[in-house]
């Protein structure tokens, strides 16, 4: 299983701070699409992704037990 963490407005859109999901073997891009559909999140494709607190590209493949965080860039200032 994998733990998925949502930051900032993604959490409000998802309705959860974190969820458990089976994502091993999927790429980050695939996971984003799956999560976006399942939790009704609109702009997940532009979000940054951390696997185990390390920035990861859309091509990275997720392993069992990895914790994935979606951190959307924000622009306020």
């Amino acid at each position: 299983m994998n733990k998925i963490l949502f930051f900032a407005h993604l959490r409000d859109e998802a309705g959860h701070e974190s969820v458990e999901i089976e994502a091993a073997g999927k790429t980050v891009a695939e996971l984003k699409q799956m999560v976006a559909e399942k939790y009704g999140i609109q702009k997940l494709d532009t979000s940054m992704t951390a696997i185990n607190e390390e920035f990861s590209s859309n091509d990275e493949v997720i392993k069992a037990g990895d914790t994935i965080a979606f951190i959307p860039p924000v622009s306020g200032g």
Partner: protein
Amino acid sequence: MSERYSRQTLFPPIGKGGQEKIRSKHVLMIGAGALGSGNAELLVRAGIGRLTIVDRDYVEASNLQRQQLYTEEDVAEKLPKAAAAEKRLKAINSEVAITAMIADATPEKLAELIDGVDLIIDATDNFETRMAINDISQKFRIPWIYGACVGSFGMSFSIIPGKTPCLNCLLKTVPLQGMTCDTGGIIGPAVQMVIAHQGAEALKILVEDWDAVRTSFVSFDLWRNQYTSMKMSKAKDPGCLSCGEHPEYPYLDVENMTKTTVLCGRDTVQIRPPKQQQLNLQDTAEKMKDLGYQVKGNPYLVSVEMDDNRMVIFEDGRALIHGTKDLAQARSIYQRFFG
């Protein structure tokens, strides 16, 4: 001077040598809103040699809740932020050479201001300007510090050309509809927390303590008691068009910029985003209503009433700002919502 900065020179990583370095440096601050006013005050109090601060907006009542250089009098006088900031900063520290510019930080303006600058601090409210800062930083090999916040959430990252990944490595494209303070709200402590991070990084860079510069991307949520440090060792993209092997600095190219035109004979500015968008007009209308604006719409457009302006938005992201001929003001209004 020695008495004035005594508590800072007592801090061993700065010391008297570091204070001399701070005094010899020039920082370019892009924006004089919440992050800009806080970061500017911090550096001016710390004894920076020269500060250039650029902003296109006026002080409004809704700024006072979090923008620390401004008072009710500045609102009453409708002072430009750059001018109001300069007045307060000079009262705080008359030893600092302050240049305040009432201007839109376009790529041309940035290129004009970059000469002699040691560090750029990002205090803007939109990604288009940030991407231009990022390209200027790479082209002229000047570090910059990204910072942003919305609600109780915020983030910061230090970008050192030749060493760290750049913002274009991370984002690949300008995200339309990044959350802004005008759509998600903002609390003062989130602003202060971003300033704390940007300010500490700035001091490290100014005293040239490169080993101390943070290499991770920080994000936090003060209301939800979260703090996260994302390691960036795999983030650098060798093919990045801003910092890669064959840089093209795409965001300095006018082709990739939001275009603004005063419509002939009318008190209206047209705004056209760099790429065609496919906006969901119904969502946009509802969001604007939630924000308290009076909104009308039809299948082709959404019309939003503001104090002195009316904004009409089309499905492709194009907008008309009625009630102004000022390009910078129109861009400012547009980027409040599409930051």
